[in-house]
């Protein structure tokens, strides 16, 4: 299975997927920590997360998958939602909670 296929399967088989550096308990980057915090604030305590630091292939592949050069990346129901900045904006406007509830 190609990296693209693995990612495709991950984002489509879980409602909320976060590609991040580190784990939710031990994020290794401020932006990833922010993403976990925002999901928690929206009531998502246990998102399916992938630590890209543990998986160099995914780390590279995920950037190509969404044509997005940075980590973290949030997917809801298979759709790429954005990185840390967009998550923050969507959270502040209330849109993220709606997306997660839909």
């Amino acid at each position, binding site marked *: 299975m190609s990296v693209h296929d693995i990612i495709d399967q991950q984002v489509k088989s879980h409602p909320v997927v976060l590609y991040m550096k580190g784990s939710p308990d031990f994020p290794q980057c401020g932006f990833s920590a922010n993403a976990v915090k925002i999901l928690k604030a929206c009531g998502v305590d246990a998102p399916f997360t992938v630590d890209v630091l543990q998986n160099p292939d995914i780390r590279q592949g995920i950037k190509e998958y969404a*044509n*997005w*050069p940075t980590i973290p990346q949030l997917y809801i129901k298979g759709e790429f939602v954005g990185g840390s900045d*967009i998550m923050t904006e969507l959270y502040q406007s209330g849109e993220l909670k709606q997306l997660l509830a839909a």
Partner: protein
Amino acid sequence: MVLPQDIKQYIEAGLPCERVEVSGDGHHFEAIIVSHLFAGKSRVAQHQLVYQALGDRMRQEIHALSMRTLTPEQWAALGGH
């Protein structure tokens, strides 16, 4: 080391925009980008335009860039701040 004004230049060179402001310490940067090209586009598509302008620099030189993208109308509605 990459300076905020370098990033401003990179963005301006690769994306037609009305205004670019970048601040940062050489490692973490924050940018506000105002462009008419953002009109009608999703936030993801807007940020992709900026990443496209930065190209490989985003992978090599720039470690962390936080950005806010606005159309000229949105910028004006904020009072230009």
